């Protein structure tokens, strides 16, 4: 079934591309070089409405469909993977669970600030001993009167360095083993006992702030319990279904940026008296990259469309994430190959794109976990 974008989705692509080229492309190399979070972009992203894409209009958001969201992430990532994941994690991992599992008070309290950029969101699931294996989550949330008292540690938290609102998964039903004892909480940055630790120095998406979080007798009001007690794993998995599509869109965007750079370079680089684009070896790489990109994009839009229509999309999002993560590494690698020696230097953006692409095979579920999710659907 051919996928036809709506007028609004086509115009979203135009608007975000225009914005990204004018406001983000000029700083992409510098924030990567300096490992610097692009905080100056946050008001601009908010002004365009990109921080409230998944938030209903009544709470100050845009209420855009999931395909439009994927297109926005794709276009941001086309010029800068860091900006793509900043908006993706804010939207898919923090805002989305509050929209879909928060009560009226929680939505009123947190969503307008998340839409306006006054607060950036983050999501805390991964721990030193529990990444893909959420059943071994060690962070605890012990009920004490009107509060839950959180203790433990989270790692690799995107936006950690500057987020104000965190959705955190912790074990509140201490006598219930495995994933059924987990609950989700909204934790504000300035809560006593909550500490954001030093950011990681990473291979790629270097402008993205990736930090550990520490909870030490951190008292979170019971009013900040998201959903019901024991629903933490369900909320996390549903959140990651959308998050995976978002990361797949990021991967498509990074690959698209590298593809365009490779095409431009192939047409201008002259060897043996002709542009290297005239060489069949280059043409074959370009053709393979184009097919890879279109296939990945189709998987992303299909998964996003299912999500928009509130159809089951776990498998579609896992397929999109798996294919697009690996595709982005292939395509950005070929882009460097087409550039030759200069592609390996910081003078051209493709080496940054290659480093940025690699993480899309890892975070929000490794490629191996995606294969597990997909295979389970067929082998039940």
């Amino acid at each position, binding site marked *: 079934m051919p996928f036809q974008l709506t007028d609004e989705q086509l*115009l979203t692509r135009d*608007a975000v591309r225009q914005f990204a080229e004018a406001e983000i492309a000029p700083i992409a190399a510098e924030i990567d070089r300096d490992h610097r979070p692009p905080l100056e972009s946050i008001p601009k992203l908010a002004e365009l409405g990109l921080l409230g894409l998944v938030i209903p209009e009544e709470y100050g958001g*845009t209420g855009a469909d999931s395909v439009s969201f994927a297109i926005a992430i794709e276009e941001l990532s086309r010029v800068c993977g860091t900006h793509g994941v900043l908006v993706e994690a804010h939207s898919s991992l923090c805002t989305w669970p509050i929209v879909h599992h928060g009560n009226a008070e929680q939505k009123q309290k947190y969503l307008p600030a998340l839409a306006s950029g006054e607060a950036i969101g983050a999501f805390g699931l991964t721990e030193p001993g529990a990444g893909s294996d959420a059943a071994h989550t060690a962070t605890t949330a012990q009920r004490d009167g009107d509060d839950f008292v959180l203790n433990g540690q989270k790692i690799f938290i995107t936006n950690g360095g500057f987020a104000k609102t965190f959705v955190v998964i912790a074990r509140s039903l201490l006598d219930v083993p495995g994933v059924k004892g987990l609950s989700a909480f909204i934790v504000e940055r300035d809560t006593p006992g909550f500490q954001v630790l030093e950011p990681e120095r990473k291979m790629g998406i270097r402008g993205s702030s990736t930090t550990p979080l520490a909870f030490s007798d951190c008292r979170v009001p019971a009013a900040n319990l998201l959903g019901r007690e024991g629903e933490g794993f369900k909320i996390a998995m549903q959140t990651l279904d959308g998050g995976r599509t978002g990361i797949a869109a990021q991967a498509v965007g990074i690959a698209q940026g590298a593809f365009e750079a490779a095409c431009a370079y192939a047409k201008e680089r002259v060897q043996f008296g002709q542009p290297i684009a005239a060489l069949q070896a280059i043409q074959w790489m370009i053709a393979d990259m184009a097919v890879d990109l279109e296939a990945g994009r189709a998987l992303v839009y299909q998964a996003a469309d299912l999500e928009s229509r509130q159809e089951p999309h776990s498998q579609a999002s896992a397929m999109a994430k798996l294919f697009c993560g690996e595709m982005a590494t292939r395509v950005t690698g070929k882009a460097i190959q087409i550039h030759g020696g200069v592609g390996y230097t910081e003078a051209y953006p493709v080496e940054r794109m290659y480093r940025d692409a690699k993480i899309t095979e890892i975070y929000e579920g490794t490629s191996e976990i995606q294969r597990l999710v997909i295979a389970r659907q067929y082998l039940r």
Partner: protein
Amino acid sequence: MNIVNIVVAYKYAPDPQEATVSSDGTVDFSRAKAVVSDYDAVAIGYGRRLATACGATLVGVCVGGPQSAKPVATKAALSRGLDRVVVVADDELETAGSTRTAQAIAAVVSQLGDVALVLAGDSSMDVAARMTPSVLAGLLGWPMLSDVETVALADGSAALERLTPQGVQSITVALPAVVSLTSEAWPVKPPGMKDLLAAGKKPVEIKSVADLGLTLADEGTVVSRAKLGGSARLGVVIDTSDPAAAAATLVEALRAAGALSEGGLA
């Protein structure tokens, strides 16, 4: 201030940045995506500010072929801040020049009534003749001011600042009037996501030449196109290992070519 309607004339046309130029100099627009140009976005953005300040309705008027009436085309314009659009879309207008375009805009302006101001961008993006606002003003019998940088509306008049080669000219003009803005008059930004989603809910009117009862003027027929005589490039390469000597050589070469006089550029 009692201003009912402000009109912005805009065009939905192929983006020249996406056109390709072949080795014989012909320009191919076939793969260029149609857009509302940044010139027109300046006029819409500026018009939005004026209309909001005086409580007027901002009406976009677009003249062109059938693709101008496509929902994606009208939404692209409406998302920039227009309250409604009237599109005159007709096969006969697909390649309309300034005269026919102005005829159609004038007819819509007359039908709308209560129009105090027609704003246009610096030029159309594809033809770039900069003629349509002048022809329109002539048809309406209104004053026309080009190269306008600022507009301040008052009751029955507008105070304008025009950029001229001699400097900034301040003018007060009685309304109604036709005004074309410079490309720097308003900072163009992409439309926000809320504006994009709201665009589809705004009113759109599609009209044909027949609906307007227009008899289109004869704009003449292009008999042939002659290529402008190109200036041959000399391809002189100057060795820059000694910058001072290179500069002297460059100056001498420019003088020899007649491009530089004793006082500076010829």
